């Protein structure tokens, strides 16, 4: 069975086909949601921001150029929205807030208390560590390591060179190792 590519779906959505747009949402909604979540660390606003991302995509689907990869274009929109939101609301993340947000997301009944505690601690550490990075390093690492975008795609989303992306990731890596070293060393 032929599975339509994002590109084909985007072109159909461009011509007004809502079912094609629904399929694009099914494919990318979770990825964008987690990208926004990892960047903002606000579980209460990441769903709204994700909806906003897709609303912008819907409104500007007419400007989608077939040469561009749909996911790159999508993450570019998401990145811009996250940065605008960050500047507008000056999202300062406190560790307490992170704990609170993670607490909402956990499915307490599904795991035993010890596992839950360990996962919660790990999340706390990772989220806190990423939140200390400068914007560009945070975005480059989130897009590359969590969303699986290539250097080239990240560079297009961030409007910078591939070399700059590598630098952001490398600098971010060094800082993250500095912060997480005691916990990383526990891993065998």
């Amino acid at each position, binding site marked *: 069975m032929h599975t339509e590519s994002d590109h084909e779906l985007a072109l159909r959505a461009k011509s007004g086909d*809502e079912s094609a747009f*629904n399929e694009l*949402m*099914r494919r990318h*909604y*979770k990825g964008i*949601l*987690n990208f926004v*979540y*990892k960047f903002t660390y606000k*579980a209460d606003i*990441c*769903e709204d921001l*994700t*909806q906003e991302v*897709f*609303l912008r995509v*819907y409104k500007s689907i007419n400007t989608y150029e077939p040469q561009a990869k749909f996911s790159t274009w999508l993450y570019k929109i998401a990145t811009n929205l996250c940065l605008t939101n960050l500047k507008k609301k000056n999202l300062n993340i406190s560790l307490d807030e992170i704990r609170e947000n993670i607490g909402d*997301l956990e499915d307490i009944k599904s795991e035993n208390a010890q596992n839950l505690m360990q*996962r919660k601690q*790990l*999340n706390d550490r*990772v*989220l806190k560590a*990423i939140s200390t990075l400068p914007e560009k390093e945070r975005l480059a*690492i989130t897009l*590359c*390591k*969590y969303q*699986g975008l*290539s*250097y080239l795609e990240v560079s297009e989303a961030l409007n910078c060179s591939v070399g700059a992306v*590598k630098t952001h*990731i*490398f600098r971010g*890596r060094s800082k*993250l*190792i500095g912060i*997480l070293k005691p*916990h*990383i*060393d526990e*891993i065998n």
Partner: protein
Amino acid sequence: MIDEKIINQIEDYFSGELNDEESKSLLLKVEDSDELRKHFEESNKLWSYMASAETIEPSPDYIRRFWKIVSSNEEKKSRSFFQFNFMNKKWTFVSSLAVILLLSTIIVNNFVLEEEKSGYVYEEDDELLIHNLEEALSKNTPDVLNVYGPWEDIEN
């Protein structure tokens, strides 16, 4: 001293940017050097640790919610279009009225009240005098000047 190029390659490896051949070549170099192996393991542990951070699930009705927002936005847009149209009609009416009033004022000022502005008002006597003068001039006789007064006294 670790070669910076290989350090970068290690990061490229973990970002999935190396092909199979490049990866094999890198792994051989890493095996040969303690320092490179240390760096490699450090990166490996970091990215594995980071990857174990949990992902969140979208709300089950996210597509329905999206279309609801779209339709409510479109409704707002059309409402504001109608409001704009209504306002447009209202303002067209008001501005037309204002133009009519302005034109009437200009016409009244320039033409009807011109006489008053010049400060001269015609009287019936003046009109009669002019009429008589024109009549006398048209006769082409000495009587013409009679209109200015009795001439018998001067002759005598």
